[in-house]
């Protein structure tokens, strides 16, 4: 009894103060994923049912809506290609480093950490698919978190709102750098050590700054919701709401940052490659 309790205590302390147990956990962790699959079945059956038994009208309407949305996005993408090329040229003028295209992998959420205090989720991609430790995870709206444990066919993600997580961000409007840390509340991030005089306003978009060398640059992270300047305190109290839908996104993206081909500068005749890049995106109509 006391012996077993003591072993448990030693295990805990080993976990807290060393990383000796990490390989053990990674090995044993692969056993866990099937159980999450089992628990997830009711949900997936429900979703399958909703997908399968839909009326034709509903599908047609959705199809139309999606087509309209696609058109808008395609139009934006055409502008985007030109802007990206221009950006590369300007960067070359400044002799600064090339920006790198990111490769992404679509993954699906299969489980949520049952403990309300830890914000972790499990996705269905693992070492088999090349997922690595510290890999960033996005959804359609913004940055979600990073990989903290990789198993064979699944991996665990720590969300940006977890109380133990912090990431370097910058304000999109003026480039002020800050550190956004999680609070343990799914809808709240805190900006740490931001002086009272710093120019930050409600509604400012925070994007990842890439300074921690972990998250790629420029992905939206959160929107500032409140700024409190208390003269009695050394720093301003700034809170933000994550852009990513941390509790409802089911399909997520794992980013392989810096692995793809660098965006090459169309040096001699800039107009041609820009068109070429825009061509697969645009479907013929002029922007």
């Amino acid at each position, binding site marked *: *009894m006391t012996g*077993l*309790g003591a*072993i*448990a*205590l*030693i*295990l*805990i302390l080993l*976990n*807290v103060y060393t990383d000796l*147990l990490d390989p*053990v*956990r990674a090995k*044993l*962790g692969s*056993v*866990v994923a099937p*159980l*999450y699959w*089992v*628990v*997830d079945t009711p*949900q997936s059956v429900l979703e399958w049912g909703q997908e399968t038994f839909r009326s034709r009208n509903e599908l047609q309407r959705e199809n139309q809506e999606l087509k309209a949305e696609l058109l808008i996005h395609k139009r934006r993408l055409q502008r985007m290609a030109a802007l990206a090329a221009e950006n590369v040229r300007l960067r070359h003028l400044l002799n600064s480093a090339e920006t790198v295209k990111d490769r992404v992998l679509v993954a699906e959420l299969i*489980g*949520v*950490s*049952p*403990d*309300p*205090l*830890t914000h*972790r989720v*499990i996705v269905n991609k693992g070492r088999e698919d090349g997922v690595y430790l510290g890999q960033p995870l996005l959804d359609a709206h913004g940055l979600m978190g990073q990989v903290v*444990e990789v198993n064979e066919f699944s991996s*665990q993600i720590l969300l940006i709102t*977890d*109380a*133990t997580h912090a990431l370097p961000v910058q304000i999109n409007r003026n480039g002020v750098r800050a550190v956004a840390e999680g609070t*343990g509340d*799914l809808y709240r991030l805190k900006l740490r050590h931001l002086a009272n005089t710093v120019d930050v306003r409600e509604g400012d978009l925070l994007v990842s700054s890439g300074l921690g060398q972990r998250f790629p640059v420029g992905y939206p992270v959160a929107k500032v919701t409140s700024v409190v300047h208390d003269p009695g305190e050394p720093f301003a109290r700034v809170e933000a709401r994550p852009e990513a839908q941390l*509790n409802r996104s089911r399909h997520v993206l794992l980013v392989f940052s810096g692995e793809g081909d660098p965006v090459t500068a169309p040096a001699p005749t800039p107009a041609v490659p820009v068109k070429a890049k825009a061509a697969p995106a645009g479907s013929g109509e002029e922007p």
Partner: protein
Amino acid sequence: MIRAHNRFIIWLSFLVALLLMIFPLGRESGWLRPEFVPMLVIYWVLVMPQQSSLLFIWGLGCCQDLLEGVMLGQHAMALMVVAYVCLLSYQRMRNYTLWHQTFFVFVLVGLYQLVDNWVHSLQGHAAQNLIFLMPAFTSALMWPLLWICLERIRISYRVS
């Protein structure tokens, strides 16, 4: 010496409990999830104290740790505390009425939550207020139902 009979029911009950522990609930409703594993430990220790193996309970705790992705040993230790108190007091607890037992379960699961929260605080995310005792409350509410169901199952399968 009691001959082991239909012990698989115990295994099955714990497997179901583990699955219920990881069943996805919303972030807020997650606080309302009863702690099925310690409740089952309490039940099986109460009804067959001589046959309950502490090593098994310890292993169970480690399984739960792996499953929930928390530190290895966290639930194992909390379950050891629960099993220990339960083994000390099973003779008294058996004589309590169901409602009286409910209070005892509240205390035991509360103890379990306390150890759990202590380990959490080592990692840096401790609960800010007494909300971490919420599962103990819902567990206590669940206890009479769980007791009646498990008694039915145990008697009809003659688990010993």
